[in-house]
């Protein structure tokens, strides 16, 4: 086998790793557009690695999902009012509020959601941690 062909996969892997490191540096500096350009450059060169694939997924610009949600419009004015007027008594806790009424409060979000899950009819609460 020609030597160049034997070396190529290693070189490719090294290049992919170098790109991945550079991309991380840019992401950590908040230079996401530059990171995306680097990623595009790497992929255009035919480089592939699990790291680059992960960057491809997480750095992809967001996509609006059209027509996927049929949630009924809800107003939360009364919940906001509750947070403003009543939440001081629940410092350090997660609270679930619906229609200006406290439905559940607990030290953990998991406990609050468990309480909501047991309620009939199923509430559509606004959940917030009061720190």
């Amino acid at each position: 086998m020609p030597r160049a062909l034997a070396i190529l996969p290693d070189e490719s892997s090294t290049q992919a790793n170098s790109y991945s490191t550079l991309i991380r540096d840019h992401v950590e500096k908040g230079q996401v557009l530059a990171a995306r350009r680097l990623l595009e450059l790497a992929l255009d060169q035919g480089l592939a690695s699990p790291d680059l694939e992960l960057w491809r997924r997480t750095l992809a610009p967001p996509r609006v999902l059209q027509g996927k949600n049929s949630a009924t419009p809800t107003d939360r004015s009364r919940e906001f009012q509750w947070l403003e007027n009543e939440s001081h008594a629940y410092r350090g806790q997660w609270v679930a509020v619906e229609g200006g009424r406290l439905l559940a409060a607990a030290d953990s979000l998991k406990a609050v959601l468990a309480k909501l899950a047991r309620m009939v009819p199923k509430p559509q609460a606004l959940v917030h941690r009061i720190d």
Partner: protein
Amino acid sequence: MTLTRKGQEFTTGSARFHDSASNHLEPGSKVFVRFRIAHLEHEFLGLLDTGATWSIVDWEIAVLAGLRPESGHRIRYSGRWGTIEGSVVTCSFLLPASEGEPLEIQGSVFVSTDWRAGNFIGYRGLLERIRFALDPQENRFYFGPCA
């Protein structure tokens, strides 16, 4: 009500925002908007922060939403709160509407096991593909998809 610009639809939905969550990491008047994340059925509040590179989701929410740090690259994220370690991960994100249509986005957010200081709605991964406007007189947040 939706907004138009040059005769074209600019936003498709709106919701009131909360501006006095003094219990947040950054007390004072801010813009807190409602959101839903992943499969979770209830709504949360996040600070609208165009100065933040990434959105950050409270760790307890991230856990229950199934956002696993190992599904993204581990990075250090620096902001005015300091530097934290975590990962940028993909997730679905919904802005509920009180008028018009909700907006659902497939985006990316930052999660960290160290983060329990509220939710931030940042630019990259979410806001960068959303048209939005604020009406501080009515505390209303207008939003819609980029064309």
